[in-house]
């Protein structure tokens, strides 16, 4: 069960229980199996295998002397990146025909930081064109389908490109779908007005929108310069925390970055649900006037169903 978390798989890589190339191959296979989700615009098979091979060789070389020092916790871990981040030598389209065929000569800072960790880039994920959208339905390369579609539609139409599917949310729908369908361990999205959080919610993965200025926007093709941030999508909260800590930091190439304190805690993976505190927004007049109460209440009912009952006195 090392499949779910970068931290776990990282441990497995370090201990030699799985090799970087095996892992990469498995992920690429998963991408092929789930191609109907249309989560990826480009898959960099060759490049990914090259990177994985390099990590594997280095580990072998050093492993013999028991001096194996991974580049970082993400060494050998496959990841994907939303196609509005510049990736050197890899086509970056922003899901638009305007940038079709455009190959940037540099990496976005946050992408570079992941590569510097030894992480392996699998490909560029699909999005609403230029990140303008909240469904990943407006891409020049077709919409992204939610991996949980069958749960919503009730049918077994998931392996066909039928019309019976649920949206993945957006604009980072491809990233969310990729993480949710297990084809990568983490994905970079972007968030301007919910574009990482909303697809994260719809695809059932952890989505983190960092505070503006904490992560560098150098190489993130902008939608709204004063609001955009790179977003982090993972399957576990502790993994999002690890990635945040790796990616944060002022960048001299981005004058809107600010220093931020290091994360002073290590989040555990195993959560004792009996000891959690759940925050629920007050239902105010404003919510009711906007017709929100209905939505909040029904979502709560569903959530409450998944959590221990003594947390919900009104049930």
């Amino acid at each position, binding site marked *: 069960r090392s499949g779910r978390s970068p931290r776990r798989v990282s441990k497995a890589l370090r201990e030699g229980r799985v090799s970087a190339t095996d892992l990469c191959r498995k992920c690429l296979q998963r991408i092929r199996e789930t191609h109907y989700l249309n989560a990826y615009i480009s898959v960099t098979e060759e490049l990914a295998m090259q990177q994985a091979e390099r990590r594997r060789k280095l580990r072998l070389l050093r492993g013999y002397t028991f001096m194996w020092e991974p580049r970082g916790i993400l060494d050998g871990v496959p990841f994907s990146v939303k196609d509005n*981040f*510049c990736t050197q030598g890899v086509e*970056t389209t*922003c899901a638009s025909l305007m*940038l079709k065929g*455009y190959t*940037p*000569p*540099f990496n*976005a800072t946050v992408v570079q930081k992941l590569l510097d960790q030894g992480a392996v880039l699998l490909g560029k994920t699909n999005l609403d064109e230029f990140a303008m959208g909240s469904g990943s339905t407006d891409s020049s390369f077709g919409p992204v389908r939610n991996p949980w579609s069958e749960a919503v539609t009730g049918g077994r139409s998931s392996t066909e490109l039928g019309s019976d599917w649920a949206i993945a949310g957006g604009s980072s729908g491809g990233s969310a779908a990729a993480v949710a369908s297990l084809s990568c361990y983490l994905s970079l999205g972007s968030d301007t007005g919910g574009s990482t959080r909303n697809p994260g919610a719809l695809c059932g993965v952890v989505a983190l929108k960092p505070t503006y200025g904490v992560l560098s*926007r*150098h*190489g*993130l*093709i*902008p939608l*709204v*310069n*004063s609001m955009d941030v790179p977003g982090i999508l993972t399957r576990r909260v502790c993994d999002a925390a690890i990635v945040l800590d790796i990616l944060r930091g002022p960048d*001299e*190439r*981005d*004058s*809107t970055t600010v220093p931020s304190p290091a994360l002073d805690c290590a989040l555990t993976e195993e959560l004792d649900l009996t000891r959690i505190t759940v925050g629920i927004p007050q239902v105010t007049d404003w919510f009711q006037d906007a017709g929100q109460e209905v939505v909040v209440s029904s979502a709560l009912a569903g959530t409450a169903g998944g959590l221990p009952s003594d947390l919900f006195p009104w049930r």
Partner: protein
Amino acid sequence: MVGVVGLEVHAQINSTSKLFSGSQVSFSSPPNSRVSYFDASLPGTLPVLNRRCVEAAVMTGLALNCTINMKSLFDRKHYFYADMPAGYQITQQRLPIAVSGLLIYSHLGGPKRNQVISKSIRIKQIQLEQDSGKSLHDEHQSQTLIDLNRAGVGLMELVMEPDMSCGEEAAAAVRELQLILQALGTCQGNMSEGQLRVDANVSVHRPGEPLGVRTEVKNINSIRHLARAIDHEIQRQMELLEQGGVVQNETRAFDQKTGFMPEPNLPPLLLYVSGRVPAGLDPSQVVLVDRVKALLPELPGVRRERLVEEYGILPEHSYTLVNEDGLADYFETVVKATKAEPRKVIGWVVKELLSNLNQQNLKVNQSLVAARALAELLDLLETGHVSSTAAKVVFQELWKNPEKGAEKIIQEQNLGLMSDAATLQIICQKVVESHPEEVKAIQNGNHKVLNKLMGQVQKETKGRADPVQVRAILQELTSS
């Protein structure tokens, strides 16, 4: 009717790299060889402010008596043009780095053009902005070639109030600005290379009446051209109005207040004063206005006054010294190297040297007679080895044969001072005897005629005769 002239000046900042990117500023590099990803406006690139450009703008603002805004902001000015790939220029429209200054300039006026007249122009503001690339229109092949080497180079735009009335004033003002910028080192000021670009707004009106419609005079690549173009335009407008016509305003398409938005990728530009810098700031991010002020060099206006005070020369000569690149330095070098008094040196520098340079269109640093060589010659003149007339001949000889020293030339061409009393007596006698009418005139009280006789003696001696002795001898001979 009088003319009203206002200037808009764009001065290229003398820095190693561009205003918002690290690519090098250099002139005449191969096309598109000094272009960073940001200059080419590749998506995802961001501007990073160049500290040196900020210091240059602060220094220029201080030298022009401006108020420095301790907080200034950057804006985007949008328009489409092929040599501006971003589709907008980053500038400072709302809140520029310096405002409300004064450019004090002087020019030679008066009936003999030897009076130094001081004037001033109000400076509305100085703002930092990006230069654009260059477009080369190839009509032959119906295409336009774009060179982005210049795209993103830092500019200081100086906006001035329309306080001038003619081309001559504008020319003198621009010249003074050029000298100031060159003294500061913030701009090399070469108009023909586009380092200093001047556009003039020209209108005419009757004093007391509202200002007339203004037109723009552009594409000026020399100060002389500027003066002529402005005067020509004033003349044209006056004639047009006198004939009952109307001045057409061909406004630039970009001369409007729309198309602006704040630049979201650059925080406000904050400047500080020593001792009042907030804790925790990286020193490399801090520009201290008082430190920049302390680095201000001697400005041209101050230098002119100092030259007059220190050396006792005339203001008009001081004006000439400062106006000509390197001439003031040359003068001061000669003065320090010679025993001759500055008041004697100045004549040689502004007359003999300058006219020789102008004849051959040479700059001071290309002078064929070095400062030390002139100092040598002046020493010889001072110690009586050569007469002042002969010295001028020696100077011209030095110009032709700079490798020979003054002494050698005097020797070779036998230009040494003739001061032997007996020889002089004979020559004077000869002149007196051959000019009886002049002698009579002198004896009748017209002493000025003596100069004519002196001239004759100098002619006989090829200018070598000691003028003091000759005058004494002639006076003696003609007094009886």
